[in-house]
């Protein structure tokens, strides 16, 4: 049973526009959420995170929103740039919730069109 879901395998956005990547989770014990970016043949790199005590975290062009009641988070990228083309993974973890590793979604392939 997938606990972190990214329902869009791919997303195409025009350069300069906003990219919105979505993520849903089912485990109410999750209280820390992260987004990772992955280029081909490289390891995932950390992008931005948010604690469950917040509903928004911003870092430059990247903003993550968390809606705990809906168990939903989203990553906004504004403006989108060609270098943003990558696979984006949503991940979640829970303090004291068993395995200390991150639970990942399947990823969304973001394609920025020129």
């Amino acid at each position, binding site marked *: 049973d997938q606990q972190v879901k*990214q329902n869009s395998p791919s997303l195409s956005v025009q350069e300069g526009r906003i990219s919105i990547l979505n993520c849903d989770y089912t485990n109410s014990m999750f209280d820390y959420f*992260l987004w990772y970016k992955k280029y081909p043949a490289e*390891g995932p790199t950390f992008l931005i995170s948010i604690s469950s005590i917040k509903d928004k975290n911003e870092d430059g062009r990247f903003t993550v929103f968390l809606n705990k009641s809906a168990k939903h988070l989203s990553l906004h990228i504004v403006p989108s740039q060609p270098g943003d083309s990558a696979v984006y993974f949503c991940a979640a973890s829970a303090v004291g919730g068993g*395995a200390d590793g*991150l*639970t*990942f979604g*399947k990823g969304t392939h973001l394609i920025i069109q020129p």
Partner: protein
Amino acid sequence: DAGITQSPRYKITETGRQVTLMCHQTWSHSYMFWYRQDLGHGLRLIYYSAAADITDKGEVPDGYVVSRSKTENFPLTLESATRSQTSVYFCASRGGRVGTEAFFGQGTRLTVV
């Protein structure tokens, strides 16, 4: 070099062989993890370690063995490789408990023929 490194980057092995993937980090992070990435599954946790000599199973541990005699190293061994273990393997480390990000190595692409 500082950071987290995996070796080898690419490996082809035969069914039934034992193979070990290496992971080394220079930050003295307490936590280390092994994930595998497969099409349609994303990243799945195989094993993790909270400190030297402390390891625990993740989501997909069957067929794998880990050890952590030193803080900086976390090797992953496939005792008898199977074709279903063909995958890209990522090692990661984290300095503290939940609430900090994990840093990933560049990955090992393993093919079992």
